[in-house]
């Protein structure tokens, strides 16, 4: 058989789709943010109203932008850490296009108001089934490639991508269990408090294994590659991986403090959330230490800057999260914009930034060329940083205000402030958040242009796996 090169065309399509969804998803976020400032912005159209736009925002940002990037980078890195081309490349194309098709259909269905009503799992049952099938195909391509690998050890990025695939499959299938009533309407198999526990077992771990674990897979491959240094501590990565996989699953009930679920479930959620700080920070330190010694590169290389900054925000979000999981803090933060600020310090600062950094590194290599403009990428970097900071500062201020004022009582135990007054005082924070969103979105548009100009008119480079080496143990070092 002729030596087959890596299948990178499918990676290229997935990366470009991810950029497209990033713009759509963030534009929807900006629109939603604007609607909170000017509530008339839906022009009395049901499909443009806040509830639907916000749902489209979260779904497109996470499943369009995030997951397309994860599938694309998983396909890229699994080949290079296994020294073989993708297993079943035809199926990889099916995964790629079926996922995009599902997103378009999902967008339509969410705008039409079909929703299961469960956060981050809004899609109705026919979509749930379709997604499950695509996900299984993803698993076959990914694990099939690993099974045929020419290197003995499975590199650490693949553990994280693997955990993403396995655990998300488990969560998705269990949490979507429902009784269909019609084609686009079903009712959850579980009710009330039990449904809540199950939903946040799903919701928190979608964050854990997708927005955190999946992107850590990206980090573990692209950061060492880019810094041209092996990962700082291999042992730390092992310990952190298993501690992470074990503890995350328990933490869901921190979304349900003081609610009608058993105390012991909430308490376990607190303990495990606080424990989570350890593997999260261990991983962050591992990443940062990997770059140390290559600091010089930071000055000239926007891609690496993005990745390093994303680790800082990862550290911030995973410090803030365990704090918010403590009941006395959650008392104030729960239901407020503080949560939204926390979400976006993760989503913008960590997920979006590491993805941007990865794309700036990856896309030129996919076409065997140079990035169209390093200068534009540098501008993007500062816009992304400014947008993120403004967003989370505005939401912290808003959230702490809401949390404290809602609970304020006078000396006779009467409420001090009406709900409406507190709400009305939010408008300036919501305005700031809108500005932040516009800056962040504009940066992403610059990136889209930059990447488009980089790939335009260029063929995908044909890269061959390295020749088999005599000592497979040493090869794993090379792979990293």
């Amino acid at each position, binding site marked *: 058989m002729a030596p087959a090169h890596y299948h990178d065309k499918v990676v290229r399509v997935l990366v470009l789709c991810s950029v497209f969804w990033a713009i759509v998803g963030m534009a929807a976020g900006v629109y939603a943010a604007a609607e909170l400032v000017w509530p008339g912005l839906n022009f009395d159209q049901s499909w443009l109203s806040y509830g639907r736009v916000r749902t489209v925002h979260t779904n497109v940002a996470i499943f369009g932008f995030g997951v397309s990037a994860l599938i694309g980078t998983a396909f890229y890195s699994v080949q290079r850490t296994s020294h073989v081309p993708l297993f079943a490349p035809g199926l990889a194309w099916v995964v790629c296009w079926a996922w995009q098709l599902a997103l378009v259909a999902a967008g339509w269905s969410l705008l039409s108001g079909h929703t299961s009503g469960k956060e981050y799992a809004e899609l109705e049952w026919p979509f749930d089934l379709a997604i499950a099938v695509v996900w299984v195909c993803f698993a076959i391509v990914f694990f099939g490639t690993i099974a045929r690998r020419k290197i003995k050890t499975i590199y650490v990025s693949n553990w994280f991508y693997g955990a993403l695939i396995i655990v998300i499959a488990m969560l998705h299938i269990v949490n979507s269990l429902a009784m269909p009533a019609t084609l686009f309407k079903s009712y959850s198999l579980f009710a009330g408090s039990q449904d*809540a526990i199950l939903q946040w*077992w799903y919701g928190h771990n979608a964050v854990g294994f997708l927005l955190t674990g999946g992107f850590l897979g990206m980090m573990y491959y692209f950061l060492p590659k880019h810094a041209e240094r092996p990962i700082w501590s291999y042992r730390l990565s092992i310990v952190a991986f298993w501690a992470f996989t074990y503890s995350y699953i328990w933490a869901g009930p921190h979304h349900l403090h003081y609610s009608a679920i058993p105390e012991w479930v909430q308490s376990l959620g607190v303990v495990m959330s606080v424990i989570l700080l350890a593997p999260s920070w261990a991983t962050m330190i591992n990443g940062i230490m990997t770059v140390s010694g290559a600091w010089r590169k930071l000055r000239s290389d926007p891609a690496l800057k993005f990745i390093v900054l994303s680790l800082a925000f990862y550290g911030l979000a995973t410090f803030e999260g365990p704090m918010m999981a403590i009941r006395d803090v959650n008392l104030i933060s729960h239901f407020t914009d503080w949560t939204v600020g926390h979400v976006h310090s993760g989503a913008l600062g960590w997920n979006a930034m590491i993805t941007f950094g990865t794309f700036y590194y990856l896309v030129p290599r996919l076409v065997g060329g140079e990035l169209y403009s390093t200068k534009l990428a540098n501008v993007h970097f500062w816009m992304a940083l400014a947008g993120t900071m403004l967003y989370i500062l505005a939401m912290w201020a808003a959230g702490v205000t809401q949390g404290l004022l809602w609970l304020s009582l006078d000396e006779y135990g009467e409420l001090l402030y009406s709900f409406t007054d507190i709400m009305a005082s939010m408008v300036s924070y919501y305005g700031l958040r809108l500005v932040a969103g516009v800056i962040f979105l504009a940066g992403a548009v610059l990136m889209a242009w930059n990447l488009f100009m980089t790939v335009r008119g260029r063929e995908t480079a044909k890269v061959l796996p390295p020749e088999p080496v005599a000592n497979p143990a040493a090869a794993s070092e090379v792979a990293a």
Partner: protein
Amino acid sequence: MSGVRLHQKLENNIGLLIFGILFVASIGGAAQVVPALFQDSLQQPGVNTVPYTAAELDGRDIYMRESCGVCHTQHIRPLLAEVERYGPYSRAGEFVYDRPFLWGSKRTGPDLHRIGGKYSDEWHWIHMMDPRAVVPDSIMPAYPWLADAPANRGNDIDKRMRALQKLGHPYNDEEIADAAASLEGLTEMDVLIIYLQGMGDTVDPDAADDHGGHGG
């Protein structure tokens, strides 16, 4: 380091690694979520908790369709300030017919778990048509299209009730057969308001003035 040696086995065998991840990630769910799913006390309806009527159910489905729940919670925490603002705190028994639960995670607008009876039907109607007509500072969008659409738009209320019946909601066949007729002539706005006005009447009278165990 025998730990590292053990790990080398996992790293060299994809089947073992897959199994290892699945196993380790299942422990938490098995020990925490599964017992809760079988805990009887979470499935016992409260004294006043009955299944939604056809109109309430249709209204609730509209509440979901419009994603009201992204801004409004339906869960009052057992905190003094919250009980004063919204009413007796929420109990598990009140939610046993909620599929899915709609507790929400963000209070852009106020909690609605005990909104029923707080305002007149007319107030709700105006508020849904033009929120700023009754609450000048409100940032809620208007929902005028609900006033023009007939209730039970998909003509499938019987199918929806049947699905819930299969899940154990105590509807009888007669109720299901009469459901469509009972919605005749109502608009989506009407059923949504019927749903809202029924919110919170599930509270146990003995607990009505309970201010909860926690400070706040």
